[in-house]
């Protein structure tokens, strides 16, 4: 696929923007339509677009981690946030909330962190599938 230089440059600059947008969707999910799943897809789409204009090696470099590892990390984040309550003697996944409101993030609690885990997993999954298929040719 031959993309014009303009497109390729545009995508290069869009990448961080889209990532920020995806995080925005992730964070607002608790209150407005959005959430980790859709956010993750947006982020994955950003990398996917990037991979159409650049070689896979470059995309991997930009990503820095293996998509496979992202899956693991995402699941780990999710399960850790869910397990926190166990240490407080509460049932698994009980939402724990930090009492202060943080800048940007707003109210932070384990359900939100769990959603971040979802986000990471979705990025990892999507990229792993796409990368594998592209490598397959």
């Amino acid at each position, binding site marked *: 696929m031959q993309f014009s230089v303009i497109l390729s440059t545009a995508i290069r600059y869009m990448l961080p923007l889209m990532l920020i947008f995806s995080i925005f969707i992730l964070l607002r999910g608790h209150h*407005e*339509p959005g959430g980790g799943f859709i956010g993750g897809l947006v982020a994955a789409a950003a990398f996917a677009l990037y991979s159409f204009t650049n070689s896979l090696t470059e995309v991997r470099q930009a990503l820095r981690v293996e998509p496979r590892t992202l899956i693991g990390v995402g699941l780990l984040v999710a399960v850790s946030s869910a397990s926190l309550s166990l240490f407080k003697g509460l049932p698994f996944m009980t939402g724990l909330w930090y009492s202060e409101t943080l800048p940007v993030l707003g109210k932070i609690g384990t359900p939100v962190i769990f959603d971040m885990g979802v986000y990471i997993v979705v990025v990892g999954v999507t990229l792993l599938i796409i990368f594998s298929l592209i490598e397959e040719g």
Partner: protein
Amino acid sequence: MEVILAFVIGALYTAGFYMILRRSIVKLILGLGLLGHAANLMIFTIGRLTRASPPIIGHEGEALHAPFADPLPQALILTAIVIGFGVQAFAIVLVKRAYQTVNTDDFDQMRSTDLQEA
């Protein structure tokens, strides 16, 4: 609207079943896709339809006020869609690989694991 959708769902199921009964492995995948759509739409309809009141609590209120769309079926479908996607992605690739090994789209060429060796 529920009545109309009931028939749409039925049509989707019929089409899905018909597609998976073909001998083509590609049609199988398309059929499974149709069935997935049908199932999601069905749960959505079963949860009853409410027009244009998403289950989001306004910033002034403490709770949802009727009328609002039932959020639970939505959450269930969302989960089901995502799971369905994952499973289908795998199934698609499986079909592709199977095609590569037997080199045909014809299911009738894929009977060896069921049959006795001569």
